């Protein structure tokens, strides 16, 4: 016996969720396997489409790059192949991307479909769908990120808004330096006054208090030394508000009750409240993860987490089942079609050592330069070839072998396991996941239905 489903999605990130929902909506039986906690909790919670594109002129070869050891960092940065942007819309730069970029393979409509699916899944908890233009959201590093969709909690912080801004950090929360963020934003030339202030708040919290502790305290308006925490915060911030019309905090303002935390603080301070997305652990990412996993349930997707896929069984050019390691016992999960959405080098959907780069479950072909010294350039933030490593798919998102033929007739790929995009520099990670997820999920469902019909016809 094997555990059976029509479509089996391997991976619980944005791409896996998107493909599972799309397939389920096509009316087939879908199961999603996630090995670990979704990578969404390490992401900012911002949904970017495309913010920057590589220059039209080919990048300098890595031999021409200056080494960081030899030159001043700023010089390295200046010589770096400049990306163009921020783009006004995520669609305008697509035709300038390299041919093997997922957007080039799938076209702008896949991104539109992906974002439309996202809008549908998150409802009114996210904004940005009213326009095709990129929103400019301040980050906790003091940069401004072009992004297609943003959580409602970040709305009042947009850099296109001209109202004066106050940023507030907590002394006991060392991850967020409000003064630095304000200075960086001012230096970047934002069209508003911005000040940063650090307040003593929840001083009984030691400096290594986990962010989740703050979240819980805000969520339930817990009392610290007898005073409800929201009121306590409003009281210490109040003297600094002055003429600021919006006040930004690190993204720790509650979880289930985040909206009421912001309203409550806003009423007390007489300003709009917003959150600045943080690095890991990311509360906006956690909230999004919760939201998306709820929708999986609502769409009838069967869900299993905590078990890794470690291999497969095939018959000719067809994957028959994925072998799942259930605490040391290998159990086959049979499916008509499979979506590979296991992530990239960080998510471990791709694996590498000195000898090579590989996709570890199915051994799909991953193109990479033979000489390991061509995998990277010296400039750490430069145009790193390894950032584009991944499987190379056809237009239906089937991974191709070295000869350009599909590896399997019923295997599709989505998300960061797909190569061709430098999502960190392009600001395209979410968009690539959504676009590839939608196409892979749709085709996996169609192919699965074909196979079911074939079996029914022959019996």
């Amino acid at each position, binding site marked *: *016996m094997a*555990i*059976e489903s029509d479509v089996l999605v391997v991976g619980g990130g944005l791409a896996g969720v998107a493909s599972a929902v799309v397939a389920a909506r096509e009316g087939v039986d879908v199961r999603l396997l996630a090995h*670990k*906690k979704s*990578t969404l*909790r*390490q992401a900012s919670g911002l949904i970017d489409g495309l913010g920057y594109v590589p220059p039209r002129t080919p990048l300098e070869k890595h031999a021409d790059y200056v080494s960081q050891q030899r030159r001043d960092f700023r010089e390295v940065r200046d010589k770096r192949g400049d990306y163009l942007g921020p783009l006004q819309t995520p669609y305008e730069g697509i035709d300038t991307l390299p041919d093997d970029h997922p957007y080039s393979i799938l076209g702008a409509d896949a991104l539109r479909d992906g974002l439309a699916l996202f809008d549908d899944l998150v409802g009114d908890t996210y904004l940005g769908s009213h326009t095709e233009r990129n929103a400019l959201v301040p980050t906790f590093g003091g940069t401004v990120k072009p992004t297609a969709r943003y959580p409602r909690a970040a709305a009042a912080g947009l850099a296109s808004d001209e109202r004066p801004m106050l940023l507030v950090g907590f002394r006991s929360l060392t991850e967020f330096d409000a003064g630095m963020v304000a200075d960086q934003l001012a230096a970047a030339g934002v069209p508003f006054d911005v000040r940063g202030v650090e307040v003593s708040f929840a001083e*009984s*919290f*030691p400096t*290594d*208090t*986990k*962010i*989740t*502790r703050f*979240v*819980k305290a805000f969520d*339930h308006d817990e009392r610290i030394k007898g005073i409800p925490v929201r009121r306590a915060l409003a009281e210490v911030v109040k003297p600094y508000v002055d003429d600021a019309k919006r006040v930004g905090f690190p993204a720790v303002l509650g979880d289930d009750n985040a909206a009421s935390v912001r309203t409550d603080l806003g009423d007390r301070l007489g300003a709009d409240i917003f959150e600045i997305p943080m690095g*890991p*652990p990311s509360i906006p990412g*956690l909230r999004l993860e919760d939201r998306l996993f709820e929708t999986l*349930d609502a769409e009838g997707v*069967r*869900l*299993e*987490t*905590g*078990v890794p896929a*470690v*291999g*497969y*069984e*095939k*018959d000719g050019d067809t994957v*028959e089942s994925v*072998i799942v390691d*259930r*605490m*040391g*016992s*290998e*159990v086959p999960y049979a499916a008509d079609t499979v979506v590979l959405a296991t992530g990239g080098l960080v*998510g*471990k959907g791709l*694996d590498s*050592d*000195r000898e090579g780069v590989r996709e*570890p*479950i*199915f*051994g799909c072909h991953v193109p990479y330069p033979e000489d390991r010294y061509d995998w990277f350039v010296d400039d750490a933030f430069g145009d790193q070839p390894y950032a584009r490593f991944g499987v190379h798919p056809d237009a239906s998102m089937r991974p191709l072998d070295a000869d350009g033929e599909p590896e399997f007739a019923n295997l599709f790929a989505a998300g960061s396991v797909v190569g061709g995009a430098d999502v960190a520099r392009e600001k395209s990670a979410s968009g690539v996941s959504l676009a590839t997820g939608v196409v892979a999920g749709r085709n996996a469902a169609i192919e699965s239905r074909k196979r079911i019909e074939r079996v029914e016809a022959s019996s």
Partner: protein
Amino acid sequence: MSEKHRADEADRRRRTTDGVASETVNPEQPDAVEVFPEGEFDLRPGADDCYKCTTCETSCPVAAVDKSFPGPKFQGPEQWRLKRKDEIEIDPSISECSNCLRCDTSCPSGVNLAQMHNTARGEYVDNQLSTFSIKYVRNRILANYRTSARLASMFPRTANFVMNFKPVRWAMEKILHVPSERDFPEFATQTFREWWSERGGAQVTNPDKQVAYFHGCYANYNTTEVAKAMVRLYEYFGYEILVPPQKCSGTPMFANGMLDDARRHAETNVENLAAVIEDGADVIASCTSCSMALRNEYPELFDIDGIETLAKNTFDALEYLRIHEDLHGAIQDASVSGEFAEEFAYHAPCHSRNQGLDRQAIELFRDLDGVQIEDVGDSCSGISGTYGWKEEKYEKSMKIGAEMFEHMEAAEGTTGMTECPTCGMQMEHGTGYDVHHPLEVLEAAFVD
């Protein structure tokens, strides 16, 4: 013809120990140099693999309610590294860890946080906790629940009266720091093993489908109805059930740092269970902390002959049926009426999550006529076995459980469901709902 492909284990291992280039290894002496001599287990890979992504911290239910708990990343990799240079003692905060093991499951880098925490806790108890302290005595009694349960089950009615008798509980709180708020679990008037031998053991003989049942302490002394349901369900599916001699799985002992006690019990379990596996049976458990211990903690903490075999051949009872029977198909033709035709508010225990079992009850019962089921979310119940049975942890345990209580109350049903006996206690304690095990519902669906 199908072909099987498996990511090469040796290849994987080679990659995780990258950094030692193969050509530098002397073929005469293939063992790598021991840079940091350790005890029985080398925890260095756990420390080296941590890239500080903080996923474990967002998964930690204790850190979310306790501002001074430094979190799983500290308890594991960071503390291990700190201790390399000097004689630094284990930070006492290790005893605030509830052993839910959510950190272990969540780590994307495969750091064995469970192993690191268990080892640290064992070291703390061995070297820093006086065996004369009340805390030690209390923890030892709690950890060795099997011993007290065995005594109590000799006089179950008396025990049930005494254990919930107010003056006794007052004295227990004052002397042993066992919170008087909690209701002591009721002891069955006949243990499962007594019932088993009274009915004459297995009613089905089938040398091709044999399972050995690890019932653990709770289903033997307290919730015997779960164990009996499991027996009747498996016999319905044609399995021959063996009930080998066994002791405590060790979970409460790991959680209290009593590793010597745990090893003693593990030795008995491994010996008896490995023997039946040798004869062709698989091992199944109805308590998810028991199956977790046999599969995960045993090989991580002990080196006992047969321990790997046991780990590889142990399954959760529901999981095993899903793998080997067309349970999904059978469920679609079945229905439940009577006592178990309920709307259930289901809570997945942390230790079922760790084994990838947290959604199986939802998946199965969604398609079962007569039964409604709703997942009350992924929060921890907070009791964590013996954790919530300590006076100084009681409040924290209830704070962690608050989210689950809220979600249970928001759910349609007013009957609880879970696989873990202590989660069940907490669910009942926080909401007043009756709580059942999925196996009881399955029995109602298939067995008359």
